[in-house]
């Protein structure tokens, strides 16, 4: 199957919406459930993932001609691990409080399926510029998903946004419970599905 080459903006939007890592591909769910209790956490982890995704995509697209196909997966893993170590040390040095709140999740970026998958599917077959934009799209897609989840849970659970009191009361305290992450992601996915099927039915009708 030959697909026409995409422009950079298309690549970027693809990751942000059509193939959103959290709601569409359903990959890297652990932080989406465990760390989306507030907007701040979601934002910081999103930035960390964006950084690792873009850097690893660029690295792999630069060295793709030197990698023997049989050892490509270990190569990807070690590349990701290196960039994760970099962002881990940087975050620990500059935002120690937020780093402590995120706990072990920053280091676990190394096992996120989304990054390895983008390297395998995209970066090892394309040049530097498309890989960069694909990484940006995927990273921002993840950032977008995490922020939305964090916003829903923070507004509904605590009545605040980024730590500032917005509503003045707490509508549903249930949403700050750790277990509510599962429900929030489930409801969001259902909404995405509903919008999709609704759109399809309307198209058929007209």
């Amino acid at each position, binding site marked *: 199957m030959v697909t026409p080459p995409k422009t950079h903006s298309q690549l970027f939007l693809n990751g942000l919406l059509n193939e959103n890592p959290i709601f569409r591909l359903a990959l890297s769910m*652990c932080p989406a459930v465990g760390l989306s209790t507030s907007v701040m956490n979601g934002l910081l982890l999103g930035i960390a993932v964006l950084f690792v995704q873009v850097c690893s995509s660029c690295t792999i697209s630069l060295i793709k001609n030197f990698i023997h196909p049989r050892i490509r997966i270990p190569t990807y893993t070690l590349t990701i691990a290196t960039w994760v170590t970099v962002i881990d040390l940087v975050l620990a040095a500059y935002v120690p409080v937020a780093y402590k709140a995120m706990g072990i999740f920053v280091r676990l970026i190394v096992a996120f399926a989304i990054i390895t998958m983008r390297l395998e599917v995209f970066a090892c077959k394309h040049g530097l510029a498309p890989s960069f934009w694909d990484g940006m799209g995927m990273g921002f897609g993840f950032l977008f998903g995490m922020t939305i989840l964090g916003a829903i849970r923070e507004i509904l659970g605590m009545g605040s946004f980024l730590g500032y009191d917005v509503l003045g009361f707490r509508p549903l305290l249930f949403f700050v419970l750790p277990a509510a992450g599962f429900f929030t992601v*489930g409801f969001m996915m259902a909404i995405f599905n509903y919008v999709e099927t609704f759109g399809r039915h309307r198209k058929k009708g007209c």
Partner: protein
Amino acid sequence: MHRALNRIAGATAGLPQKLQRMGLIGLFIGILLVGGCRTEHPYVQNAAFTADDEITITFAGPVDAAWARDPGNFSVNEKADPDIRVGLREAVLSADGKKLTLRWAEPLNRQNSHRLVLQEISADGQSRGSADLTVAKPYSGTLLTILIGAMIIQNFVFSKYLGLCVFFGTSRKKSTAVGMGITFTTVIVFSSLLSWLLYQFVLKPFRLDYLQVVVFIGLVSLTVQGVDTILRKVNPRLFKAFGVYLVLVIANCIIIAVPLTLAQNEYDMWESLMLALGAGLGFLIALFLMSSVRERIEFANIPESYRGLPIAFIVAGLFALSFMGFSGMSLF
């Protein structure tokens, strides 16, 4: 589940039974050796918690009542915070003078090990020297706490929200769930022990702590590749049953979370083994529970937009809520 177990039983039947029994006996002896008592002072036989604010010390012979009455002779603190001393409320010496019960002003946290110092123990009018003791709950209790903790109380899937991609991917059928759980437990035990070895004897002595992520993930890939190669040659039947799950193991966050946790908490070898075993078995339990529910959901009438993953997430949320009931529980 039975089918999967039969498959393993059939595949391992080739091993001589004698070898299996020998391995089991060796394991028990090892546990006894490590779990046995450790004395640090010749005159002190045993020191242990008898209540939250009470430590009982057994001496080899009778000690002087005058020495036992002086509160300045005793001090206790948590091993982690040497500065926070707890005051003594009373010291009660038994009639034969061999058993001393120390009651403290505040309750001590029995989960942590404490350092107890006895100044210049005097018996029969002569000094026996100071004793510096470690008081902790029994080692086997610590091990069991770690095992049950990782398996149920702090279940990695339902309480720590790790390993979800693989969890939702392989919990559609019971047979797949059990296969994945068993493969995962095997690999995580091997890779965690290797990680512990490398961390204690290479990374820590050479101050290479910052390389943890790179080294651990490399070890995991190595273990997976090794198990794959060995199993393919040694036991093709077992490989046919579980080979497909091996690739998925590496995409599971738990497999990298366990080595990081045991490096952070400075666990020793048996504690690491228990943590890895608990994490693996906990993942197996979670998968089995989830797959049982999802097999039934297949026949239920669910709104169209909830079919597939969304309803699975909501079921997992209900499980997580019920697992919250275990939180704060402590054994021993």
